[in-house]
Each structure stands twice: as C-alpha cells, then as structure tokens.
C-alpha cells in the first residue's frame, strides 16, 4: 500500500531582505527578536543537544572560533586566486559554442591585448 505524506513548512525570514533593507520599517522589532530567539530551529536544536548532555557551551565556543578561522583562511586563499581565463566568458552559453561567440572572443582578446591596463587580472590566456 502506498502512503503519501505531505509536509507543509512554514518559514519566517528573520533577517532583512537585503543589505539595503531595514525591516523594522514594516514589522515590529519584537516580532523579529521572538522568531530569532525562541523559534530559530538551529538554536532549538542546540538547546536540545545540551539537555541530552551531548553539547555544552565550551564546545560551542571552541567550534565557533575554529569555524571562523577556517572561513577566514578560505577567504584568504580565494582572494589570492587568479581570475578565470578569458575563454570562460564564452563557454556554457550553449552546449556547443556558435560562430558569433568565437568571433566575439577574438575581438575581446584583441581589445585586451591593446588595452591590458584596462582589464587587470585577465591574462589574455
């Protein structure tokens, strides 16, 4: 026999819409705080783990510090990476590159060759 389950998931956007949004302009700050503190599933899961004795605040602190360091390190590595090759601009538009894009790539390489200072970080290949 086939059992079907339906899951209805209610979500709430606890943060602002974008960096240019100030959502206290259209909703009470108390509402946002309530969702963040008492409804956040990650916070609730942590409290449950702590109650089971499988997590404690020292572990929390250590992990936060090491995770942050990992992320910062990853950023440092990423920042030093070279930009992708110019050819990457023109691939994956289609499965196979059409002739107009081959032409445009040639013109762009010529432009970059002529004005290298205007396109820093893009080796012409």
């Amino acid at each position, binding site marked *: 026999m086939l059992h079907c389950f339906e899951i209805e998931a209610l979500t709430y956007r606890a943060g602002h819409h974008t960096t240019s949004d100030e959502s206290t302009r*259209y909703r009470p700050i108390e509402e946002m705080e309530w969702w963040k503190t008492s409804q956040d599933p990650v916070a609730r899961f942590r409290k449950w783990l702590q109650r089971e004795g499988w997590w404690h605040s020292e572990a929390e602190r250590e992990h936060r510090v090491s995770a942050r360091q990992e992320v910062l390190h990853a950023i440092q590595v990423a920042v030093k990476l070279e930009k992708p090759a110019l050819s990457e601009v023109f691939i994956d538009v289609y499965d196979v590159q059409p002739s107009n894009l081959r032409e*445009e790539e040639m013109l762009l390489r010529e432009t*970059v060759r002529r004005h290298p200072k205007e*396109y820093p970080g893009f080796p012409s290949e």
Partner: protein
Amino acid sequence: MAVALRRFGRLRWSCSGSCLRGISSECGKPINLYTAINQALHSALETDPRAYVFGEDVGFGGVFRCTTGLADHFGKHRGIVGFAVGLAAMGNRAICEIQFADYIFPAFDQIVNEAAKFRYRSGNQFNCGGLTIRAPYGAVGHGGHYHSQSPEAFFCHVPGIKVVIPRSPQQAKGLLLSCIRDANPTVFFEPKWLYRLAVEDVPEKDYMVPLSEAEVIREGNDITLVGWGAQLSIMEQACNEAEKDGISCELIDLKTLIPWDKETVEASVNKTGRLVISHEAPVTGGFGAEISASIVERCFLRLEAPVCRVCGLDTPFPLVFESLYLPTKNKLLDAIKSTVGY
C-alpha cells in the same frame, strides 16, 4: 558601490546647457537620480487624484529609495502589472515599479498581450494609457546575471507601448512625468548605477521632457554616436578622448526608444557620414540593430563607413567578467577610430 565609485567617480552635469534649451530659467538644486524620480512621483500623485504608485517594497521607500515618503504622504497600495493594466483601463494613472528589470519577465505577457494591445483590439473604445511601468536596469558593478540586465530590446519589439530611458536626474524627472501623463502605456527603465552617483541641478517645479525627441548633447562633425541611459556618460568619456586625436564627435541621447526620433539621428548622420551605436545589452538583436538598419536605409549613399555597434557580449551578464563584457570607453574609442579611418 565601492566598485562603481572607483569606476565612475562622481558625475556632475552642468545645468546651463539644458537651461538654454528652455527647460527652466531657474536651475534648481543639485540632487541625484533617485531623488529626481521621487520628485516626479510626488508631482504625479499631487496633480492627479487618480494616480497610484505600487510595486514590491515601495511602501517603505523601495530598495533604491525612489518611493521614499510617498506612502506617508499619499497612503499605501500594492500590486503589480496585471493590476496596473486594470487600474489604467478604468482611467487611472497606474505607476507600478518592478524592483529590478531582470524580474520583469513574468509580467511580459501582461505588457505584450494586454497593455500593448488594449487600444488596438478594442478599436479605441478602451485603452490603458495611464499605465507606466518603472524598473531599474543596467550594470551596477556587482549585479551579476539577475541585477544587471538591459531588457529594453524585448519591449522595443512591441507596437503599442513606449520605451523611455533617461540619462540623468534632470532628464529622469521630466521624462518620467511625460511617461506618466502620456496617453499610452510606457515602460521607463532607470539606470540603477546612477541612482546615487549622478548628481545634477534639477528644477524643483513640475516639468516635462518630451517623448520621441532625441537630443544632440554634444555637437561634432566627424562621427555620430547614439546611445541612452548610463552608457551615455561612457560615450562622453570616449568622445573626450577622441577629441584629443582630432576627431570631432556628435553624441545623441535617444531618450525614447520606441517610437524613436529617426529624423534627428538621420540629420546627424547626413552631416557626419559615420555612426556608432552603443548599449549594454547584448549586441545580437539589441536595439542598436534597429537603429543601424533604419539609418542604412535612410543614409546609404551618405555613409562613409559601416554602421558600428559597441555593445554587450552575447552571453548572460557575467559577474567576475563584467569589465570584459561591457562596452567600455576603450572599446568605444577603438570603434570611433576605426570607423573614422575606414
């Protein structure tokens, strides 16, 4: 924004040129593009009790602040294009905002099959002329695929609507008011790069800039350049550089893309014999193709060189490759020189 500032610096247009062209004897206060648009919307709402402004987030001022203060001043309302068509069909002025032009496509059916055909299909018994759709468009330095597009070409292929793109705060206020008061549905694309960066003296009063009239914003004799919106300031930089090499450039702001002012462009090309068209949108099927085809029809014997288009690449708008994708000043300069030296 940091990237944009590095690329642009602060743009200031002097007021005197436009004042001489009869916009106003008083030059007004220096304000930026989103403030100019905000003023136009205030005027529209003030002068017409049947005007409505709506769109996503416009109630709190919008993500670009263009609708700041309007809700407090005039009361709130929400809904987008289909709703706007209905409102306009009942004789109201519906001014709706699509938060980014990249998101306008779900409304395309409403614009093409409803708004554009309303008057025609009803034998002029009905119309939705009071409809104006505003949307921020164009590169912003870090917008990537979905916050940088210039979709004007899709709309220029639709008889029944008008497509208008301002280059600066002073033009934006006057053109937007003309769109709002025009008896036809209009799509108004605002260059988001310039919302804060462009500052210009703008008259505080209510004024309109006419639609379907192109403007020669720089006179010259050797070559004509045609563009619109934010691209014009890049073209202006290229013209300044070309001048150093003794090339005299005439620069035209099209302003209204459909119906467009062929006569002004034709007259200029008849003078110079050369044409370069530039837009951020991809070159294939871009609106430059229409301008090129029409001018070749009209000026074939006068042309000294093929009409040249300096446009975006035929790829989705990239993120890290933005500087390679765009029609930059040096690409324009190369095109000017090769067209003049043809």
